[in-house]
């Protein structure tokens, strides 16, 4: 069994995240981390490896040079066996389609049984790249799974929509994307951190990305909210809120 996990570095959601107001592109000056949803995606793969030690888990990422450090310190330390890092100046402002082309080129030769990705990144929240990769590779996609199970030659999972819970299945090889309910990521232990230093991390450039893409035309920052009225409750806090809501015309 070989499992490829698609991962991405994003601005830490615990910090203030910004766009560059000149280019509309991500401002990478703040803390950058492997997206939490990708740690969960890797955990899904590692749970399979826990059961079957012969499983090979490969993490694949597209991003600037610094991403290699996070791949090694976080994901190889958690237990992935190898990392492939696509790093290319051509990818600096790549949209979803170009990113998917670059990922597909990196993944195709791996002939993975299962490709796992997060359902959407915390920064772009587009959630379309895994479907593009699935289509490029001619594979089924089970999207937004809250549970993933491998059953021999198939992958099964649960997807909870707003009104329906679906159990879905697809033959391997397949692509799945997972939600934040899928798994709690393990922390790298000391052995993992030490072992990660010796694991293979291959950097490669992108293949042909094409001229089709998206272009950002404008970017604007929302003005900060004006300071509100904050009061201490002196026994009449609930009444005060009701009065405020009435004064604002929000309730009759």
């Amino acid at each position: 069994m070989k499992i490829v996990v698609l991962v991405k570095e994003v601005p830490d959601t615990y910090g203030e995240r910004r766009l560059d107001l000149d280019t509309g592109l991500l401002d990478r000056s703040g803390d950058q981390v492997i997206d939490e949803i990708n740690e969960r995606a890797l955990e899904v793969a590692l749970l399979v490896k826990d059961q079957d030690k012969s499983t090979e888990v490969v993490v694949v990422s597209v991003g600037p040079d610094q991403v290699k450090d996070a791949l090694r310190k976080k994901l190889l330390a958690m237990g992935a066996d190898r990392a492939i890092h696509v790093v290319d100046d051509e990818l600096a402002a790549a949209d979803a389609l170009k990113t998917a082309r670059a990922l597909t080129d990196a993944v195709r030769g791996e002939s993975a049984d299962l490709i796992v990705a997060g359902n959407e990144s915390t920064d772009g929240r587009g959630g379309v790249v895994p479907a593009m990769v699935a289509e490029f590779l001619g594979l089924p996609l089970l999207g937004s799974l809250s549970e993933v199970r491998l059953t021999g030659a198939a992958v099964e999972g649960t997807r909870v929509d707003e009104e329906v819970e679906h159990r879905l299945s697809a033959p391997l090889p397949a692509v799945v994307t997972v939600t934040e309910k899928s798994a709690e990521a393990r922390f790298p232990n000391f052995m993992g951190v030490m072992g990660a230093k010796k694991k293979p991390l291959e950097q490669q450039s992108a293949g042909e990305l094409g001229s089709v893409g998206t272009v950002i035309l404008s970017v604007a920052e929302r003005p900060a909210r004006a300071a509100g009225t904050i009061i201490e409750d002196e026994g009449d806090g609930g009444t005060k809120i009701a009065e405020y809501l009435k004064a604002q015309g929000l309730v009759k």
Partner: protein
Amino acid sequence: MGILVISGVDGIVGRTAAIATALAAQVGDADAILLPHTVDGRELAGRLAARLGRPVLADAVEVAVDGDRLVATHSVFGGNFTTTAAAEGAAPIITVRDGEFDATTLPGASTVDAAGLAASGAATDATVVSSTPIVIDSSRPDLKSARVVVSGGRGLGSKENFAIVEQLADALGAAVGASRVAVDSGYAAPNLQVGQTGVAVSPELYIAVGISGAIQHRAGMQTAKTIVAVNNDPDAPIFEIADYGVVGDLFEVVPQLVAALKA
């Protein structure tokens, strides 16, 4: 302009690859293909993009015609930034955020019912093993589109206490939301989660009860027109964005508010 608006996407689970194939044959030289930004809508968009070599503008909150092209507006980082973007090199596929925009109002828009397409099974499709309806309380408005949302967080302390949030919501005719902590602790159902990884809401009025206002929660509600907060911690970050805040015991303040609203 020839704009294809794809409808019926919520009825295609397990047939997405086949329908993408059928749609790809119908698209021709359409100036844009618009889809809902749902799980299946995104899969269709991604598959169509790969198949047709068209770029995707994902999660648009508004789409407008600008000369001979379409421009999509995106709300980024919980509404902290707004960008506009367009396709280059090929006409776009655009996924539209739920409830934000009626694509059929665009000039030259025509609708294609995805669910009704004669799409024979594709080798790359998933099998639906089972589909179980989720019983939801339909007496309250839908969270995404509600005019008023009342959300509860860690401060509620238990599933039983979360009823206080529901009582306030019902007094206001509001939808119920919850912080991630409240969901993870089992106080509220997962589909009620508001925030970075849950639903993003932008109501007229958002009332945060016992929610500290972690940055991930704010990413899902900070574009609300009016924000009211009740929390016992004066340093809770929710007060930084609240229009009106009460520092106090929610178990005192909220029942009093409910009583005042009913009076």
